């Protein structure tokens, strides 16, 4: 096969649009079938005519520049241009051209790909991104995005205005420079965990404002996926919750004060009942009994009346002591947390017919009264809630101490109860237990599985002595 024939076959079979034009006068010498399909012009109609004559180039200047470049001995690569087809439709091409010599004549061999759809998609994407930026910058919250590698790829103007830094400074891990040092690690850990599991993330942290003040933010994010399911990072928002936190802190402080006052009042009342009223009553019984002894046997009616009065005083003393012990456990003060917890478990077990196992080891010294009282009240509230609201099979109570902390674990076997039901107990609830624990730097966790049971754990650090 002659080389001319080979060239012609390759020319026609090429999947890209090819044209061969004269470098002298721009007239078409040949075009292939792909060119015909894209432009709508048939080969026979345009051979001998120029692209300018058929109005193909939307910007003829581009074609002229291309010829100049080629004439200066340089090839032309990847220029984007727009053509008008025979039907008037505009299409976008990406082309290259070379100067070749055919039969001694300088010619321009051009090759072009139709990138109309791609260009349209790119324009659409640009438009969408622009819309996104307009929306993202007009909402009063922070908007952020990351890539699949956890690097930040975008924060909106709200963030930039808040931090007073440039977008470039915040990209990647730059944004973490604004985090409060106490919150940074927890924040990054939360994000890392969520990224690993591709789960929604929610985290609170303090962010440094441009004036150096820190404000609390709540950030929420969700994973993004491409249509083919490929993970492409996270998108999320963050809002300033400092006012809410301040309110919560104020509420917490108030709750703690109320709890403290309430406990103090209970102790005071318990002492009045046991240490004052009951002690005074305790002086009555010997007097009554001495009086009874001194009466002659014949005064049996009077003796019986004195005996009845003595019994009544004793009963009142018993009831007052019960009332006092219910308000404040003397065992807690005298013997410590382990013994008081064991006594409480036994009382609840007796009263409600529930099996309660209680184990206590390495209890805090009696000098750690605040810690002991706190955990005792938590135990009291949870046991009461369990017997009040749940179908309880049995309860295991475990108290264990280490050099640094004391842990209380209450496992209630039965139908399990919603922790919110704790709200019914003496007007207290989980929130109240949390506030009570906060008073001594402790924390609470509640885990309920319906039909299995509920486990409540409280941990309190021991202050150094």
């Amino acid at each position, binding site marked *: 096969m002659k080389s001319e024939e080979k060239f012609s076959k390759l020319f026609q079979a090429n999947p890209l649009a090819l044209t061969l034009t004269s470098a002298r006068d721009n007239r078409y010498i040949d075009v292939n079938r792909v060119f015909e399909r894209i432009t709508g012009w048939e080969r026979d109609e345009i051979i001998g005519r120029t692209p300018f004559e058929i109005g193909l180039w939307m910007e003829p200047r581009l074609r002229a520049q291309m010829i100049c470049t080629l004439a200066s001995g340089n090839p032309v690569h990847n220029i984007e241009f727009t053509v008008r087809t025979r039907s008037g439709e505009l299409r976008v091409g990406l082309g290259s051209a070379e100067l070749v010599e055919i039969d001694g004549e300088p010619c321009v061999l051009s090759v072009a790909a139709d990138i109309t759809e791609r260009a349209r998609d790119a324009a659409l994407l640009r438009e969408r991104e622009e819309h996104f930026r307009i929306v993202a910058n007009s909402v009063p919250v922070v908007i952020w995005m990351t890539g699949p590698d956890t690097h930040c790829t975008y924060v909106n103007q709200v963030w930039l205005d808040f931090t007073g830094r440039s977008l470039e400074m915040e990209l990647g891990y730059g944004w973490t420079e604004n985090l409060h040092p106490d919150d940074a690690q927890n924040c990054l850990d939360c994000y890392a965990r969520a990224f690993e599991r591709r789960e929604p993330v929610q985290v609170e942290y303090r962010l440094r404002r441009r004036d150096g003040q820190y404000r609390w933010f709540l950030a929420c994010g969700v994973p993004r996926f491409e249509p083919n399911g490929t993970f492409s990072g996270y998108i999320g928002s963050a809002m300033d919750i400092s006012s809410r936190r301040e309110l919560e802190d104020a509420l917490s402080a108030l709750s703690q004060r109320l709890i403290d006052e309430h406990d103090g009042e209970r102790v005071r009342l318990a002492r009045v009942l*046991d*240490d004052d009223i*009951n*002690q*005074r*009553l*305790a*002086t009555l*019984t*010997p*007097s009554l*009994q*001495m009086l009874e002894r001194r009466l002659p046997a014949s005064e049996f009616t009077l003796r019986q009346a004195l005996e009845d009065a*003595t019994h009544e*005083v*004793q009963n009142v*003393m*018993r009831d007052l*002591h019960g009332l006092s*012990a219910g308000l404040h456990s*003397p*065992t807690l*003060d*005298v*013997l410590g947390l382990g*013994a*008081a917890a*064991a*006594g409480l*478990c*036994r009382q609840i*077990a*007796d009263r409600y017919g529930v099996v309660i*196992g*209680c184990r206590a*080891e*390495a*209890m805090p*010294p009696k000098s750690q009264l605040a810690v002991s009282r706190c955990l005792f009240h938590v135990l009291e509230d949870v046991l009461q809630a369990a017997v009040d609201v749940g179908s309880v099979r049995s309860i295991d109570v475990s108290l264990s*101490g*280490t*050099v640094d902390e004391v842990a209380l674990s209450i496992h209630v076997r039965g139908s399990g109860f919603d922790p919110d039901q704790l709200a019914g107990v003496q007007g207290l609830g989980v929130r109240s237990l949390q506030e009570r624990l906060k008073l001594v730097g402790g924390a609470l966790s509640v885990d309920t599985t319906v039909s299995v049971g509920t486990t409540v754990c409280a941990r309190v650090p021991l202050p150094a002595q």
Partner: protein
Amino acid sequence: MTAMRHPRVLLADDHVLVLNAMAKFLAEECVIVGEVSDGLTVVAAVERLQPDIVLLDIGMPQVDGLTLARQIRTTSPAVKLVFLTMYEDPEMVVDAFRNGASAYVLKRSAVSELSLAIREVMDGRKYITPLLADHLVAALHDGSELKAPILTDRQKDVLRLLVRGLSMKETAAALNVSARTVAFHKYQAMAELNIKSTAELIQYAVKHHIV
């Protein structure tokens, strides 16, 4: 109690009215050698007055009656301790006897019961008010708080090494914990066993084969 001699009784209660009432009631059958309303002076009063019996309240400010019992047991082991208290918890009763009590009577008990308790104690027996019988039986049945002192595995580990003569630091290194943690376990064990010195602790370990 013999008919010839009335027991010498020291009354210790922070409630003066109770002290006076008891003193009057017991005057016919006991010699009241003193009345102390301040917990801090009880031990010294016992040493000075050498009573046969100390009638002791538990709920006293500054030093509670159970702590005083431990101290009196050390300084005056022959003295009998009779608790007269408001506290009805079985845990208190158990701890009272663990600390050397001879009798436990409630303030709401009939005072004649107190006379009985004193006689029983003077005859070398123990006495617990029948008013607490139900509570104690229930607690014994439950068994949770009346069990003998039990050391944790970690406390035993510490004890074993201390018995072998290791110092706190060496014990800490052997167990790969801090010296503070070793001290914590040691003092928890001492509290559980109601032991006041390291020497007593070592003796306990040897006696109970924790070596």
